[in-house]
């Protein structure tokens, strides 16, 4: 039974990786190689839109690692996403060079406008892609490490941790709004021209960015599944279910959490870096606490602790959002709030969890009817459904474990 479930969850993750890799090849082909008259043609705006959703999906996957597998409900993951985005945005700004409105070869337009005499020190190096790429990983990772080091060592947990993560992203929002921070104030960074020498507006570049997002997401799924399946991953779930037990076994629960939190923040930063060239702007609005809460909703809708769920959730909710804001824009936030309430009440394990339940019920019914047929001469045996929570990556079923406080 357990091996079956394990294979089932494994197969689902493998299918997700394959689907993402296939999309990375097929979508650009259908966009670039097929004539616009064909029924199979994918217009550029769809490529850009879905590429954006894939970045959101990567962000939701990052949250799933800490929330689904370690019970850390971060309401500030949008901050790591935005920081990764700003690092990429700074590179893109430096690539504009003298093509800006003011024609200054060194200073971006907003700095000329705000009377900067020279480039602030923290903008050095961002004219190199490798440096920007390093910062995409390092800045969110370092912030998460320092933040987590203090929070987890002081044993801040549960709702208190959620509140301080929310405060963190809000503080960054206020900081980035200021003009003298040197990040373009409330206008943020925009008017990008090139990435690695290619025009960001060109169809081919957009397709390439789409492929990069899909491949990165596939890689992240693979890495997350590998982490979750390792002994460390089991430890992560053990900390979620009975933190004090892990301490009295000699594990340092704070380090276990800190590692997952840092890895998750780096994944969120990568998502932000892929997002910015595709949408063409990064501004302090990305630090908005509401954004981080939306990520939680995607993850909850898809099913946390399942790896595949958050990706499905992010794609579904964002597709819904694009459609809904076209039809009834002023009601979107109500619909989103309603969705969260509905999922919490009706689908506590999200779409993927519902699918699992439905499957195991169908299987039990089938087994029951088989057993009934077989019991013509022998006594019917009632099939027993073994239920467990996310023991293996991707497997959810009924009756999740209660977190157990020690004594």
């Amino acid at each position, binding site marked *: 039974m*357990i091996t079956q479930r394990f294979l089932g969850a494994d197969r689902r993750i493998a299918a997700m990786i394959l689907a993402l890799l296939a999309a990375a090849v097929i979508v650009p082909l259908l966009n670039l190689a097929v004539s616009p008259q064909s029924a199979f043609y994918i217009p550029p705006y769809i490529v850009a839109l879905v590429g954006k959703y894939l970045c959101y999906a990567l962000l939701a996957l990052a949250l799933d690692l800490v929330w689904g597998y370690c019970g850390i409900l971060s309401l500030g993951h949008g901050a790591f996403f935005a920081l990764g985005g700003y690092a990429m945005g700074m590179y893109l700004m430096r690539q504009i060079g003298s093509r800006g409105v003011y024609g200054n070869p060194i200073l971006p337009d907003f700095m000329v406008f705000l009377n900067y005499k020279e480039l602030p020190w923290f903008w050095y190096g961002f004219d190199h892609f490798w440096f920007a790429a390093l910062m995409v990983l390092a800045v969110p990772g370092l912030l998460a490490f320092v933040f987590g080091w203090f929070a987890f060592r002081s044993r801040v947990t549960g709702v208190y941790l959620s509140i301080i993560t929310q405060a963190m992203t809000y503080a960054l929002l206020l900081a980035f709004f200021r003009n003298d921070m040197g990040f373009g104030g409330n206008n943020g960074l925009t008017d990008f021209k090139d990435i690695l020498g290619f025009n960001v507006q060109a169809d081919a570049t957009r397709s390439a960015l789409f492929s990069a997002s899909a491949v990165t997401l596939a890689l992240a799924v693979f890495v997350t599944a590998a*982490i979750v399946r*390792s*002994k*460390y991953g*089991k*430890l992560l*779930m*053990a900390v979620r*279910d*009975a933190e*004090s*037990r*892990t*301490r*009295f*076994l*000699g*594990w*340092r629960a704070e*380090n*276990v959490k800190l*590692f997952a939190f840092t890895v998750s923040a780096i994944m969120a930063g990568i998502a932000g870096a892929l997002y910015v060239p595709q949408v063409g702007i990064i501004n302090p609005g990305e630090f908005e606490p509401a954004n981080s809460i939306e990520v939680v909703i995607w993850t909850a809708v898809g099913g946390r602790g399942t790896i595949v769920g958050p990706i499905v959730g992010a794609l579904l909710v964002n597709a819904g959002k694009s459609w809904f804001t076209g039809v009834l824009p002023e009601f979107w936030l109500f619909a989103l709030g309603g969705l969260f309430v509905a999922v919490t009440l009706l689908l506590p394990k999200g779409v993927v969890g519902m699918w699992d339940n439905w499957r195991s019920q169908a299987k039990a019914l089938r087994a029951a009817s088989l057993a009934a047929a077989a019991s013509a001469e022998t006594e019917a045996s009632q099939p027993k459904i*073994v*239920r*467990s*929570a*996310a*023991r293996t990556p991707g497997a959810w079923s009924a*009756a*999740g*474990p*209660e977190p*157990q406080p*020690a*004594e």
Partner: protein
Amino acid sequence: MNKSNTILYLDGVSVSFDGFRAINNLSLVLDKGEMRAIIGPNGAGKTTMMDIVTGKTRPDEGEVFFDGQVDLTRHDEAEIAMMGIGRKFQKPTVFESHSVEDNLMLALKGPRSIFPALFHRASANEARRIDDILGVVRLGDKREETAANLSHGQKQWLEIGMLLAQDPKLLLVDEPVAGMTDAETEETARLLKDIARDHSVVVVEHDMHFVRELGVKVTCLHEGSVLSEGTLDFVSADERVVEVYLGR
């Protein structure tokens, strides 16, 4: 007092929470290889004493030594666990979403840092060790079972098994038979006696039949200090103990 041959040595320990003295000038000595039962009415400070020994609570005053020379008040839970003190909670606390085998695997003695855990491969040696423990705690046929599906008594045994996997020198076992059937209680007494052959054990328990079954020296705590100490017959004949248990 000489602490050279002791596994656990508490002298003049006091701790108070918001003015309430949970432990009051408590002194207790456990010899190496000894099994001791601790009894006492609710609020006598039994669990607080375990909290102090395992580093969860720091005493306001007094000395706490492990193995004759290690000052436990200077270490935290994880360090103390690594030195060889295992603790079973009052409420069985196992990793419910993991299998019995994985529960033991996480408890097995070994490196306790992140990267070895990330790249850990199960070895034949570990599998053998897990087999041994499963045999000792009577869960041999439950290896693949999810811990959440175990009965209450089986969870208690699994938790004791996790302590054994740590390979501790001293086991602190808090109410191991609470909520167990009579048959399970007897089996648990046998299990603990097995374990006591090569470990030092402190058992906190309310169940007098169980304590009698263990047949070891008994310490009765009351209001945070030792009220009486000796054989169970001696302690239960002590007028003060009777008074405490039956009320004045």
